[in-house]
Each structure stands twice: as structure tokens, then as C-alpha cells.
């Protein structure tokens, strides 16, 4: 470990370098709805820290919990469990005055500049609002140059928090300095110092009204964010999207926060405007020493602006660490899939695309084990089935997903009514699904007949195609309407979907093309479904084909020198690393 790293570690343990420290944080929403009373587990146990002055990116797809996490950090959402240490204090326990004081330090900028600004207020009023709410400026006073007890009277008051006071008075002599952030000329402050044995009494009179100070502050902010002072009296609708986002930023900065949550601040903007806002945010950070949590779904923006990145999926942080490192060499299977899905404009790029199957599961009912286990392309297989080919695995996973999907699908009213009346519909069509999901194979002779039928249909000799199919395939072998099947076959061929046409016939007349041991399990699962017990089917499949990914949540494994971590079982010595598994597949 290098010396600087050593240094950083020690600093972190006493919490000085970190502005924000999040431990075991959970944010759940109580779910409405009659059938599903499970809470939505938006944030489901996350740990991370944000260093002072850095930008931590938070990325993930919609519904992954990133926005809820950001809102929880600024207490727009209540944490269900865990702690959020801000400068060492757990803000989830704050109440009353303490919350209000702390709010000045932690602000948020919203995605949609359109709806986050009140259209009936002028720009000046909008930016000034937080100043009014917090009765800004404090006009608090630090008295330096004395050990005695200090008393402040007049317009000022004794500074009580760790922030720099607005006015600093030196004793004896009463020289005045006003902090940069307050637009108050020093000659407008008069000071009168009286000393007794044990106390110094400082009377501070400010001869500018607070209102005027606020207006001056607003004008200052307007120029800080690249707007003009004369914009003060205009209304939001007179501004473009980029300018409105500048207004939102000015408002967030009004109280000089240390920490700003940027919730998709450039997502609604055109690229050329987005570039300007990103540059502005970087400038402001430098100028005011801000710490950012930058939430975005656009990974290229995050890569550009963030020092470190956290990748979220279904309420969990899957990978977190140095930004360049993570983008260059992602370790977690989800990060790898996500990055590979970003369309690149680099014409020489020929990266291997990983296309994920399906959609993320519901955060009301997340998987027991790894949150990504229902879609992970390199999910660990149980060792006894390690030898199965990819096609078969794809079939098994898809079959399991369909059964899960059926379980959670919000059933329509008529369907529920039918179920109650015993006219169950849910379990019908299971054979269809099996046919759709698993590969099927015809005998060689029939395969050749199929070739001829496709060719005939393709050259508009439909009758011939019908005849070929009719003589080679016996309608009584299938429960489907043979004529319909042939019609669909022909329209597939005409639409150019030869593959679909073929599998249509293979599915109906072929053998399931999977190893015998799998076939047996699938058949048993199908039996359960037919008996109306989908639950048993799901369990059987999980027991047979599930692995540690289905049953155990992984640990956050350290995956690089710089302390990056990844939440995946594959980092354990007994498994192949994710990239090796991806490599093997392609």
C-alpha cells in the first residue's frame, strides 16, 4: 500500500475526508394495492461514501432506485433503515431546527427544469425563495483576538455552527471582514466594542436591509451561473431548457451548500446545451469546493464528469469505484452488460454486444439471491449441469422467467373473476410455452420435407407447400388446427420469416431437443402447472437448476487496487471470473 493510500485510509476512518457516509441504507415504500401489499424495496441496503470535493456518479436503469437514493440523502425521502452520516452526524435522526440548518448544506437539482420552477414567479423570486425561507443572511459574527467570553448585540449574533461566519470582527480595534458570499460592503458595517474583565461585548450594526442583501445575492448568483442580471424580472417560460436548468442550479446554490445531489440534470437537454451545463457544473465545483452526487442514466455523461461511479440494480450497488477504471475494465456482470449496451459513435468500435433478456424483476418481489440473477448472462450453473449447452440453458432460464412473470403479472379483473369461477385460464397454454422456449428437432426426412415446403411457399406455390406439409406431417399428431398452422407457416414465409416458419412446424411435430435429464424435469414442471400448482413448478425448477446466484446474496468483493468493489459470487476463488465466463460464451 502506497503512502498516500495509507494516509487516505486513516483519514477515512476518522471520517474527516468523507463528507457523506452511507451505511446499510434502505428506503422502502409501503405498497398500495389490494393484492400486493409488499413494500417496494427501492433502496435495499447500500453502503458507500463520498469524499469531500469529489463527484460520485450514480447510474442504473429506471426503477433501480438511484433517484430514491439521491432523494433519501437530502431527506426528501425517509430512510427505512441504516444511516446517512453527513460530516459524521446521522442526518436520518435529525429533527426540527437541526434539519432546517442542515438543509442549507445539502441541496438538490432536479431533472426537469420545466416542472421544477414555478411559472408564476419571476426568476429573481425563484432564486430568492430559499434565502427567504432561511432568513438569509444570518449576519453571524466571529470575534477573533480574544479569549474572553463574547457577546454580540445589534443586527449580528454569535456564530454557532462550523461554517465561516458572515462577519468577522477583530478585537481590540474592531476591524471588520465580510465573507465573500455575502454582498455587503464592509464600510456599511459599524462595530462598537466594549470590554469588561471577563467579557467582550460587540455591537454590530448593518446599514443595509436584509432584503437588499438578498437581491444583491440573487444578482450575483445569476452571473455565477451564466445568466444576466436583467433576467431577474423575467418568468421561467421565457427561457430555454438550458437556461432554466441554470436557474435551478442558481437556486440550489443560493444557500452555499457543500453537497449537491444532481438528479439527471442534463437528461432533458440537447447535446450542445448539455455540454454547456456540464462545463458550468465543473466550474462551480471548482470555485465553491462542492461535493456532487451525480445521478444519470447516460453513462457517457457520467464517465465524463465523475471521479467515482456506483452502478445500481434493483436497489443494490453492483459495482462502485474509480470511474475511468470501471468504464475501462468493468468487473461486475451487470456493469459489463450495461456498458456493452451503450451505442457508440466511434466508427472503429466493434465491441461485443451483450443483449440482456427480459426486464428487471419487480422491486416488490426481488430475487432471493443476487438481484441480477434473473437476467445475468453468466449466472453460475450448478456443477452437475455445467455441461449443458447454451441453448438449453437459455430455454431453462426463459421458462423459469415466464413462470415468474405469470406469478407477478397483475391479473386483469376478468381473469380474476374467471379464476374464482373455476374457469382457470392461467394454466392453459403451457405446452405452447414449452414448445416456444425449448429447441425442437425433426427427423431428417421431415426436415427435408420442410425445406421443400419453404421453398414452394417462397416461390408462391402455396398449394404445393400445403401438399408437402399435408403428406409428411400427420394432423392428428398435434392438438393445433392443422390448417391454421399451415396458413401461419405460409404467411411467415411470405413475410420473409423463414426461421419462424420452420420452428412453427418443428415445435409441433418435433422432439424437444434437450438432454434427457432436463427433459424429465421439464415434464414434471409441466405436470405441476397442469395440476394448477405453478408454485411447485417454480420450486422444482429452482431446486434442480438454481445455483448460489438464486439462493445467496453475494458479497461486495474488492476487485482492484484502488478499492473498487463488485457484488457478485463469481469473484470467489471457486468460480470463474465474470469476464472469463463471458469470453467462454462468445
Amino acid at each position, binding site marked *: 500500500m502506497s503512502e498516500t493510500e495509507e494516509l487516505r485510509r486513516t483519514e477515512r476512518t476518522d471520517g474527516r475526508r468523507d463528507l457523506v457516509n452511507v451505511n446499510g441504507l434502505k428506503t422502502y415504500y409501503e405498497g398500495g394495492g389490494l393484492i400486493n401489499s409488499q413494500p417496494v424495496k427501492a433502496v435495499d441496503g447500500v453502503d458507500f461514501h463520498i469524499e469531500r470535493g469529489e463527484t460520485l456518479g450514480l447510474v442504473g436503469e429506471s426503477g433501480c432506485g438511484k433517484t430514491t437514493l439521491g432523494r433519501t440523502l437530502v431527506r426528501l425521502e425517509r430512510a427505512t433503515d441504516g444511516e446517512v452520516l453527513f460530516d459524521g452526524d446521522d442526518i436520518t435522526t435529525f429533527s426540527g431546527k437541526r434539519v432546517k440548518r442542515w438543509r442549507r448544506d445539502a441541496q438538490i437539482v432536479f431533472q426537469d427544469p420545466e416542472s421544477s420552477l414555478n411559472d408564476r414567479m419571476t426568476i429573481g423570486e425563484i432564486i430568492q425563495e430559499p434565502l427567504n425561507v432561511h432568513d438569509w443572511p444570518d449576519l453571524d459574527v466571529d470575534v477573533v483576538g480574544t479569549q474572553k467570553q463574547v457577546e454580540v448585540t445589534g443586527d449580528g449574533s454569535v456564530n454557532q455552527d462550523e461554517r465561516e461566519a458572515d462577519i468577522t470582527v477583530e478585537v481590540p480595534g474592531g476591524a471588520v471582514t465580510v465573507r465573500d458570499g455575502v454582498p455587503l460592503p464592509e464600510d456599511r458595517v459599524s462595530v462598537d466594542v466594549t470590554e469588561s474583565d471577563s467579557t467582550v461585548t460587540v455591537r454590530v450594526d448593518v446599514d443595509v436591509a436584509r432584503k437588499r442583501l438578498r437581491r444583491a445575492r440573487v444578482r450575483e448568483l445569476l452571473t455565477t451561473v451564466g445568466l444576466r442580471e436583467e433576467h431577474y424580472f423575467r418568468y421561467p417560460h421565457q427561457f430555454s431548457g438550458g437556461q432554466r436548468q441554470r436557474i435551478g442550479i442558481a437556486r440550489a446554490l443560493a444557500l452555499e451548500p457543500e453537497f449537491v445531489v444532481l438528479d439527471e440534470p442534463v437528461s432533458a437537454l440537447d447535446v450542445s446545451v448539455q455540454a454547456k451545463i*456540464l462545463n458550468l457544473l465543473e466550474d462551480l465545483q471548482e470555485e465553491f469546493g462542492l461535493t456532487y452526487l451525480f445521478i444519470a442514466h447516460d453513462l*457517457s*455523461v457520467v464517465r465524463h464528469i465523475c471521479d467515482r461511479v456506483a452502478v445500481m440494480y434493483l436497489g443494490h450497488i453492483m459495482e462502485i469505484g474509480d470511474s475511468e477504471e470501471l468504464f475501462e475494465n468493468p468487473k461486475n456482470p451487470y456493469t459489463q452488460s450495461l456498458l456493452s449496451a451503450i451505442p457508440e459513435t466511434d466508427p472503429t468500435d466493434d465491441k461485443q454486444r451483450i443483449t440482456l433478456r427480459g426486464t428487471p424483476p419487480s422491486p416488490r418481489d426481488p430475487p432471493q439471491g443476487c438481484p441480477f440473477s434473473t437476467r445475468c448472462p453468466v449466472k453460475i450453473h450448478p456443477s452437475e449441469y455445467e455441461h449443458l449447452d447454451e441453448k438449453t440453458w437459455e430455454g431453462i432460464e426463459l421458462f423459469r422467467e415466464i413462470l415468474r412473470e405469470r406469478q407477478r403479472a397483475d391479473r386483469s379483473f376478468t381473469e380474476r373473476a374467471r379464476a374464482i369461477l373455476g374457469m382457470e385460464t392461467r394454466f392453459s397454454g403451457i405446452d405452447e410455452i414449452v414448445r416456444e422456449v425449448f429447441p425442437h428437432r425433426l427427423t431428417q426426412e421431415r426436415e427435408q420435407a420442410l425445406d421443400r415446403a419453404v421453398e414452394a411457399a417462397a416461390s408462391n406455390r402455396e398449394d404445393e407447400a400445403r401438399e408437402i406439409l399435408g403428406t409428411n406431417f400427420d394432423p392428428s399428431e398435434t392438438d393445433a388446427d392443422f390448417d391454421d398452422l399451415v396458413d401461419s407457416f405460409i404467411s411467415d414465409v411470405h413475410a420473409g420469416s423463414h426461421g419462424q416458419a420452420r420452428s412453427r412446424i418443428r415445435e409441433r411435430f418435433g422432439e424437444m431437443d434437450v438432454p434427457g435429464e432436463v427433459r424429465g424435469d421439464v415434464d414434471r414442471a409441466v405436470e405441476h402447472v397442469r395440476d394448477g400448482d405453478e408454485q411447485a413448478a417454480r420450486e422444482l425448477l429452482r431446486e434442480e437448476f438454481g445455483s448460489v446466484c438464486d439462493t445467496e446474496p453475494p458479497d461486495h468483493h474488492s476487485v482492484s487496487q484502488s478499492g473498487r468493489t463488485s457484488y457478485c459470487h463469481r469473484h470467489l476463488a471457486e468460480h470463474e471470473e465474470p469476464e472469463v465466463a463471458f469470453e467462454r460464451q462468445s
Partner: protein
Amino acid sequence: MSIQLTREEDPILTVENLQTSFFTDKETIRAVDDISYTIQRGETVGIVGESGSGKSVTARSIMGLVDSPGRVMGGSIRFREPTTVDRLARLFPKRTAEVDELREEHDLVELVERLLNGRHTASELAGEEYAGADAETLVRDGAVDMADLVEDGYAAELGIVNERTFVVRDGSEGYVEVTNAPTEGLRKLRGRGIAMIFQDPLTSLNPVYTIGNQIKEALRLHRGLTGKRATEEAVRLLEAVSIPDARRRIDEYPHQFSGGMRQRAVIAMALACEPELLICDEPTTALDVTIQAQILELLEEIQEERNLSIMFITHDMGVMAEIADRINVMYAGELVESAPARVLFDDPKHPYTQGLLESIPSRNVGGERLRTIEGDVPTPNEKPTYCRFAPRCPEAFDACDAVHPVNVDVSTGDANHTAACLLYPEDMAREDAVAYHQSRGGETAQAAPDEVNDDE
């Protein structure tokens, strides 16, 4: 010089000098201002631009979906697809020009003579090399054909076809002129022929009907399928867009589908009509990247299977790079650059395209600050006699305020690459290039020529 109505390599869609404006109390906004481009069979043409560039209005103009206070003011949009042409010709016989019949009914030489005796010249009709030629020669050489007279509007002028003609048929071929089509004609063209997919799938789905019923309705309307056959076909379509458990999901309502699944359902609905051209207006913008990747892959598959032509509108350069064969860049209502995708990203020529690409974070990894384009996109509210990008252009010079650049060839090799900028053609001296733009019809501000000469 005779242009046949349809050749093998004829584009399925030809947009020429399209102009769509919006009329407000204050001003006329030239949302689409004189743009021309083509789409070939099986090709994906991308249109990129920022908000206010006119890219979506272009799409809506093609679909005949421009609502008041907007109106297509000029230009032509020709859709060349034989089955659609036949279908519409059958439905609108009075508004169809049958070129074969015209050939029989009229003497071409006599018609050409009438034009030449009127206010037209031979070079107008057949190009420079026929300047001064008489009607006999023009017809004998095949320099003017009946099809040309119809296509270029002379036939209407001569009164041999109805002025409101919007279907032109020549043997088994022909085209539909979308800008002339009546509302009913547009309805028949939409869906079957040209279908459109929007950013928000919910705009195309009705919340109170099941997905299956909506697809079946499209099948009934456009292909006359009903009952069990329609159900089978609907299932087949949902399977084609990779919706698992299709037979069951067909009975679900749009709200029971996830965003990505809904967009798939909308694509299935579009496919139900068996369109030849699919217009996609930011179809993946509202979706997550992994879902976006699924949809893009799906569109590519479908295109390959059906030899579908796709017009793809997006502001996302990455998506564009992924899907488009050719890219058209729009700025303030105009088409400012057009090139094959690879060429555009490798070697952008127009200063706006260059600026746009430089402001994308992913192309600036590790770069300190992002390059930005100063200022905002202007509202195109007057006829341009200058370059609309000039106030923001880092390369602008005096002539840019006085001469309107036209699209000129900037290809290296056989890339077919054009840009509308006075810096080109690159191998010409600056003032020659400016003069070249003027001669090619670039509008010029009053009193501009002098200024132009003073330039250097």
C-alpha cells in the same frame, strides 16, 4: 434524360424541396425549409438534429400528420411502392394518372409543341444539351417522355390530367404524391405503406383495449383479417417481436406491459399493416439502454427479414451510429449535411456537425472541458439569405451573412457526401466557392455581391 417512373434502384421515398411552416400570430416558422433526400429500399436513413431542428416535423409531413397551425407549403414527397400505388389507384381512380393511357390518348409531339409554344424552353424540359431542339427531336431522342410530363407537373398544366392527381401509374410501377393526397388517401396510406412509431408507445396504444384487440383491429382494417385467423396472426406478430408467452399476453392491457414490451407491441402493431416504410420518431429515447439495445436489435432483424425501409429520427448520435446506413443532419429547418454513417462520424464536414460531435461526452473521454457551440438554435422565421448557423459558427466569414449555402458535394471517394456550407467545395478558392453557391441557387441578400467581393 428521360426519367422512368420506377427503376430497380429507385428510392422508395423521394423528398424534394419539402417546406412545412407553422403560422402563429407573431410569425411564420419555417420548421422544415426546403429539404430534399431519398430513402432506398431496405435502407435505414437517420435524421439527427436538436430540438427545433425540424426533424420530427419532417416525419409528420411524410405521414400527412401536420396539424394546424402547420401546413406543408411546397415540395414533393413521393412514395414508390407498387402495391400501395395499385391499391390507391383502385380507390381513387379519378385522381390517378395512368401514363399508359395518356400515351395512347395523346400525341406526345403535339403536347411538347404546345409547351414550347407556351412559356417553356427545350432546355427546361430536357436539359442543357437539348437547348433549342424542337419537339420532334426531343420525343425522338427519348429526351422527353409522357412520364416526365406527368412527373414534372406539365401534364396538369396542359390539362390532360386532373390537377388534384396524387397517384401516378405507369404499367406496374408508379408513385403516390403524398403532398397532394386527400385526407382519406392519407388514411389509406398510413399503416399499410408507411407506418410510424413514436417515442411514447402509449400514444399509439389505447389503455382500455387489450394489446391483442388493438393488433387485431389493425389486421382487420388493413388486411381484412378477422376472428380466429386474426388472433393467430396477432400471436404470430407478438412472437415476431420477441414477446414471450405471446398467447397469454395478448389478453393483457397496455398498463400490464413494461415500457420496452409496450414499444415491442407498437412495433408489432405497425408490422400488422405490413408497411414498406417504417418511420421511427425517437422510439428508444424513453427506454433504458439495455432495453434500447433490445429494440434496436429487433428493428435490425425485422428490417433484414422484410427488406423494410426505415427512417429513424433521434437526437442521440450513438443510436444513430448503431442503426443508420446514411445520416442527414438538420439544423434550423434545413438539411446541412448528409453522408453514410461511418463517413459522417469519421469526417464530418459541416461546422455544425463538427461542433455537435465534439460536444458529446463519450467522444471526449478524458478531455478536460467539453467543446460547446455558443448561442442557441435560431427560430427559422424568414427565408434564409444567409447561413443560419453563421451567428454560432467558429468558421464564419463575411459572406456567410450574405449568401445562403446550398448542399454541395464534399465526397472523398465514392461516399456520396454533401454539406451546405460556403467553405466547400474545398478545392475552390474561397470566393469561387461562394460564387459557386450563388450560381447553384443560393439566395443572396440584397446588395450582397459587393460585400462578398470585399471579403478577404
